[in-house]
């Protein structure tokens, strides 16, 4: 599901050619998703099994980006800043992107903490538009 949604992100925003580094975009998006679904980033094994079990992520594709996800040291602010830059700060594209993050936030097992985290990310993207 993660992979499918990451593809959806790219398709929805019709940015494939404009994204500078598609892998970096996907990894950064995956780590943002990690912070709004019930998984612990610190537990690599748990992360792997949950991604495979719940998100039906293609194993080969997951293995390819897994290490990058685990080693990603960007802060939430830096991730949001990067994604915003890639979307050129375009409100429509950011809204499309956030709709997909929102789907994860309210997916099965959604907790108050996860939803709260989604709201923080959402507001970092959009605060200036409010």
């Amino acid at each position, binding site marked *: 599901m993660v992979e499918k949604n990451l593809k959806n992100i790219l398709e929805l925003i019709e940015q494939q050619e404009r994204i500078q580094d598609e892998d970096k975009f996907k990894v950064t998006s995956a780590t943002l998703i990690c912070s709004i679904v019930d998984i612990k980033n610190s537990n690599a094994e748990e992360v792997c099994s949950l991604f495979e079990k719940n998100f039906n992520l293609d194993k080969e594709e997951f293995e390819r980006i897994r290490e990058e996800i685990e080693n990603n040291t960007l802060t939430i602010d830096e991730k949001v800043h990067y994604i915003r830059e890639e979307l050129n700060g375009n409100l429509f594209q950011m*809204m499309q992107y956030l709709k997909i993050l929102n789907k994860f936030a309210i997916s099965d097992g*959604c907790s108050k903490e996860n939803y*709260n985290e989604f*709201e923080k990310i*959402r*507001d970092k993207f*959009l*605060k200036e538009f409010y």
Partner: protein
Amino acid sequence: MRLQNYSILYVEDEETTRELIKEILETECKEVFVASDGQEGLSLYNEKKPDIVLSDIAMPNMDGLEMSEAIKKINPEQPIALFTAFSQSSYIKRAAEIGVATYILKPLDEEQFFNSLNYMALELEVSRTEAESRG
């Protein structure tokens, strides 16, 4: 604040909370309609066609989920936000199935509350602009 351009239907059965939130909403929104349960909320929705619907979940007569489901049948694109403490995950699961994607966390944090409402207003603005550009 964007909310000044939008009307809100607020549904809450608890009188003290209802009056308090209504007062807060009236400072920022174009128009605020208030109902005390889902049934009244649905009837007011049909009458006023508000831009945004905001509702508690547990209420007598018709709860917030039943009302949301009925409203989504009338207008699948209607932005709805539900107040929740996330204490019952079954509510959230059902709300997501109905198509409700925004939640107002309890206890209420005023800044977060208005951020969520402004997010819904932005969603509306973007979808209306998109619809206009499609002609």
